[in-house]
């Protein structure tokens, strides 16, 4: 309080001083005014700070070891009906549960990574234009909030290499939050979720990749599905494809109405090599796709911006 009073006094003095500007030689007035304003701003900031502190001084302490306030009833939880899980998380849990049933382990992606994992270990040539396709954010240190869950491929391959040598297979899915420098609109978010899959064995092939993906989507949508592919390009898979499913009837799909679900392909030998796996001995396949679209489709949502809105009128619909 004392400090606050002092500061207010100082401010008053400063205002008086400012009134004297006419007494100062014209050529020096600008400099005089500038200095004065600087001090004034500083004092105002300190006053704001002191006022904030004053707010906090008034607060009465409570017994934090107790379970209710004095003369207050014991608090209760809110009714279960009011609660809800986030639809993206509910679906991501379902997605990983299906993959777990199919023998895949779950490794969560990280939210800040480096150029090495995001690009170098994935066979992107240095300074190659393909790196531009990902619209990455960067920190001052050159770190990258990852633009795809593939940023975890090298780590996963290394972490499970021993298991691969022992059991003959490596099967992991990587759910995670990813980021792209994109303007936000109804169908674009700068923050969204993906799920990556990685599978390595001695004799795996593209037919098995298609089999696993078909099985997954049929389990997810609880019905038989028609699938289709188209060639794609990712430096870290060779061959690379886009995987599509015919839109399920239960979601209003018509015949021939194909939806692009994810990118996939046989892991490039260089990617295996960089993780210390001999590409002469082992082959692998990998895929990655967005979760947000899957969820929008399932619930018939038309605006991706709801997901990060924190709006309870939206979220409580999923109770």
């Amino acid at each position: 309080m004392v400090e606050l009073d002092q500061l207010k006094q100082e401010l008053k003095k400063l205002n008086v001083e400012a009134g004297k500007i006419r007494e100062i030689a014209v050529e020096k007035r600008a400099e005089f005014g500038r200095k004065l304003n600087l001090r004034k701003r500083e004092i105002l900031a300190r006053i704001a700070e002191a006022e904030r502190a004053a707010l906090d001084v008034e607060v009465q302490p409570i017994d934090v070891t107790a379970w209710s306030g004095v003369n207050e009833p014991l608090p209760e939880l809110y009714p279960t009906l009011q609660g809800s899980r986030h639809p993206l998380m509910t679906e991501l849990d379902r997605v990983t549960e299906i993959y777990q049933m199919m023998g895949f382990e779950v490794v969560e992606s990280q939210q800040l990574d480096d150029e090495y994992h995001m690009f170098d270990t994935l066979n992107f040539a240095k300074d190659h234009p393909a790196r531009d396709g990902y619209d990455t954010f960067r920190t001052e240190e050159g770190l990258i909030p990852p633009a795809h869950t593939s940023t975890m491929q090298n780590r996963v391959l290394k972490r499970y290499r021993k298991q691969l040598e022992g059991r003959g297979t490596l099967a992991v899915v990587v759910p995670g939050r990813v980021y792209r420098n994109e303007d936000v609109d109804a169908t674009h978010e700068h923050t969204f979720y993906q799920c990556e899959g990685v599978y390595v064995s001695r004799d795996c092939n593209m037919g098995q990749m298609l089999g696993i993906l078909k099985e997954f989507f049929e389990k997810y949508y609880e019905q038989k599905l028609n699938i289709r592919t188209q060639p794609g390009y990712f430096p870290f898979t060779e061959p690379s494809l886009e995987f599509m499913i015919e839109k399920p009837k239960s979601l209003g799909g018509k015949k021939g109405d194909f939806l692009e679900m994810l990118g996939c392909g046989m892991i490039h030998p260089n990617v295996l090599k960089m993780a210390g796996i001999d590409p002469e001995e082992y082959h692998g396949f990998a895929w990655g796709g967005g979760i947000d679209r899957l969820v929008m489709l399932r619930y018939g949502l038309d605006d991706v911006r709801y997901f990060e809105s924190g709006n309870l009128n939206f979220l409580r619909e999923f109770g």
Partner: protein
Amino acid sequence: MKISLNWLKKYVKIPESVSNEELIRLIGSRLVEVEGVIDETHKYDNIYIVRVETCEKIPDTHLTLCQINVGDSGLVQVVCGAPNVREGMLAVWIAPGAIVPASVHEDAPFVIGKRKMQGYESNGMLAGADELDFGEDHSGIVEIEPETAVPGDKLADVFELNDLILEIENKSLTHRPDCFGIIGFAREVAGVLGAKFEPARILAETSVKKAFSATRAITISISSPNICQRYTALILEKHGEMKAKYLTWVDTVLSKSGMKPISPIVDATNYLMLLTGQPLHAFDYDKFVAVGGKDKPEIVVRLARAGEKLILLDDTEVELNENDIVICSGETPVALAGAMGGKSTMIDENTKNIILESATFSLYNLRKTQMAHGIFSEAVTRFTKGQPPYQTLAVAEACAEMLADGFKVTGGADEYPQPERPNAVDRRSSVGRRFEEENKFSSCSSPTTVKITTEEINGLLGTDYDEKSIAQTLENVGFGVKSKRNELEILAPLWRTDIHIKEDITEEVGRLNGYDNIEPTLPLHATAEKNEMWELKKQIRNTLARFGANEVLTYSFVSGRLLERVGQDVKNSYRIVNSISPELQYIRQSLTPSLLEKTYLNEKLPVEKFAIFEMNQVYCKEWGVDAEKVPAGRMKLGLVVAERKNPETAFYKAKLYAAKLFSELNISAEFVPIKRVEAESKPYEPKRTAEILIDGEYVGVVGEFKNSVRSEFKLAPYVAGFEIDLELVKNQARSTREIKFGAKKKEDVTITTDRTYAEVLRELKDKYPEATITPGTIYQAPGQKNRNITFHIEY
């Protein structure tokens, strides 16, 4: 990229059994992602070629009254405002009832009618290029070359305008520079259809190399082959007037491909770029020589020097950097290589002689140039895919041929400092043959071949293609194949700079035959271990939802202001240098500030009472980096309870949520007055906040927020929350619960005291060591110092 199906079909024969729909499906499933199809099959309906039979000026106006011959239905009267209308010309007539083509994609397409102008009836209109959607020229009406059509012909038939335009997703062709030209695209389409591609004739058979020693001399010097592999220049000298400007096939395909007709010279370079993938550039020869200050052109290709400036074609001045490749006339930069030409050597209507550039540049440099100067032209899009150098001369010659009416080749040079031996020479193509003849390969390394077995191909794909069909598939698109007993030795064609390893060959075989023909199968493998953190989060999510709380997700990026508002040090947050906005500039250090923002939003909605929670990673520079030198994140759980009107103490609600959750996880947690300060505890009021301990170890905080914070976020008084480190909780979570059977005694004990709840509880526990003690209410009479604390005891 836009691809006209009619244009494509000029270079690849599509069997009649393959419908357009099927063709597009095959392109989509075996070549490239087709983002969309623009249907132009009716864009030019009711538009005809007509002959203007009579012209009569309408007095005191710029209008002309014309009688036009529209074929079988005789003469029709039209009023025309164009200055170039004249008797005898062939023009284009938009009949009454037709839609103006340039407006077909607008919300309200413009339908031409019958109307009176200055008292004269006008039936439809004679069209200008802009109205027909062939560029922006509005200076007059379009004229059709005599002999190419007769009155009454449909415009669409003469120029093959009933077309489907494919919109191609460029990203899926990042590795295929050859497919950025119609010819390369057509080659792939042939392959997809299982047919052998017949090389195009567009690239001239005859060599003009003799012209290199002809009358006009030109020199080229390349400072390093790393920035420019090959630079070909032809000098074209004007010897006559170009034909009158008729509407041409070139105009229509440029328009269909998303470019605009500009002038015969520019159009020829653009047309050939779209056709072959090789960008061309035309300099004004005389301006070029004048800038250089010598008597002949000296082309220098080098990196720019810092501080050099250049005014581009579009009048913008760019400050060059040391990564930019520039074309110089002697010492002076005159073009930003691969990206855009310069103003000082630009061709215009007075241009007499041309230097035609056909070159390749380093895609790495051009990628940076593109970013640094924000230039995203059709040319730079092609160069950044890595155009191979094999066809520069042939494409330049084709351009000379297109301009042969008005220009002849009088000189040229072809600088190719380190010719690379192509992987394979396609001897069926004249370009391939000539490439081999013209370049002495003695100093080059031997060609790269890929050796692979049919087992390897089938093993990776899960197919059983035989040797013959694999060889056929590859030969269809120009690969050279030698095979013996299931072993294949494969030479990639000149334009396939992306073929290096076995997997590249496997991709071609799988793709061209259709991945959809691969049988999906399921492999057998071992069972999976659970991910403890993932399972813990799932359990927390289900529990808190059952407790009536709502899970939210909020951005990982926050504003510096938000960090300051809760007293967190901005310097401790990783800062995004290319953030979308200041609101999303820093990576957050804790979840609580984001939750407080959402609390405000929901109180405003209004929602009366709620608990929101989030589980997500946060980062703080103080926490350092992991073994891989990547910052270590922490997985947190944050929860905030808030009510718009409640006079009670919010702290105890938040604490209840935390305590019930831990009990559900079979963890015994302790709540003690807070002593430490962590990033997550910054917004919390120490006098009303507890530390949460498990086995004496700190795992997080629960409390109310500082008044200053609450007022910053404009929140109602009843608000509290907690933030917990889940990594620390994970190791404590147990899946089994201890179950006690048997009868229980119940009793309530009330103690009058001025001590804290915890101190009294400790005493009671000594007295009833086996009992379960749960809290009752706390009563304090007005004016009394002591409180009555009630406990429920079961034993």
